[in-house]
């Protein structure tokens, strides 16, 4: 019986830290009915110093338009590799984009900020339309956008 308990304690001790390092997070971006074609969205994170930490998602497949996501483009130099494997379709007006991903726990309550740049063909670009600190208390609270994004929410 004792060896079983020891084994259980050991496996719990090994697995628990791993679970604590990540949490599934759902990012929901709802676009307003701005009356234009699908929006390109760059979702990325900056660290406590305001430096680029990495990208979470790129909505829009044609890299030649990424320069209109001007803050993201400035941070990354337009490096497409930053969004390899995390790129999907642009998002239509009035529609919602829901992303679920395992994010590092270290991003929360540590001064990191999630940003969304938005751009729509033949319409004004909207860099940094969303800038929301990643905190546990801020989860579930909708953040309004300025131009194309009606609101954005992240939830655990």
């Amino acid at each position, binding site marked *: 019986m004792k060896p079983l308990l020891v084994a259980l304690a050991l496996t719990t001790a090994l697995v628990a830290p791993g679970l604590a*390092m*990540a949490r599934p997070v759902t990012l929901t971006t709802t676009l307003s009915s701005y009356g234009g*074609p*699908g929006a390109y969205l760059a979702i990325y*994170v900056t660290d406590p110093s305001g430096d680029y*930490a*990495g*990208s*979470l*998602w*790129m909505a*829009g*497949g*044609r*890299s*030649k*338009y990424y320069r*209109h996501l*001007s803050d993201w483009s400035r941070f990354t130099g337009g490096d*497409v*590799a*930053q*969004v*390899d*494997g*995390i*790129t*999907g*379709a*642009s*998002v*239509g007006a009035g*529609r*919602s*984009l*829901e*992303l*679920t*991903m*395992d*994010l*590092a726990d270290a*991003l929360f309550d540590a001064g990191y900020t999630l940003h969304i740049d938005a*751009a*729509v*063909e*033949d*319409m*004004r*670009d*909207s*860099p940094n339309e969303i800038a929301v600190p990643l905190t546990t208390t801020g989860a579930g609270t909708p953040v309004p956008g300025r131009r194309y994004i009606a609101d954005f929410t992240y939830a655990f």
Partner: protein
Amino acid sequence: MKTALALVLAGGVLGFAADAQAGTIPATPHPQKAEGPISGTLAAVLIDGDDGWVWSNGGGSDSGDDNGDHSEGEDCPVETDDDCLDGTMGNAAPAGSVAPPRNGLFTNGTAPQVRSN
């Protein structure tokens, strides 16, 4: 004939003045002399705004090799933009085709699950 000509001229002047006001440019006492510069100024106001740039494919200089009647909306429909997500021509690799970047944000290396409605 003279009446018709006068009406056309009056309509043109009125229309020009309305355009000038819509562009938030003060009406000048001699609008006919300012016609060229005002057009250029209006373009600058519309394109070089205080909070960003306009993504234009309508033949302007902003879109580089995309000038003309190319429309991203037509080539990359929101519902089925597989053609735009083929990872070719310098485009990013679509989600699911390769692992997400190792940027320290994704803890397990799996791509985000996406749903659009």
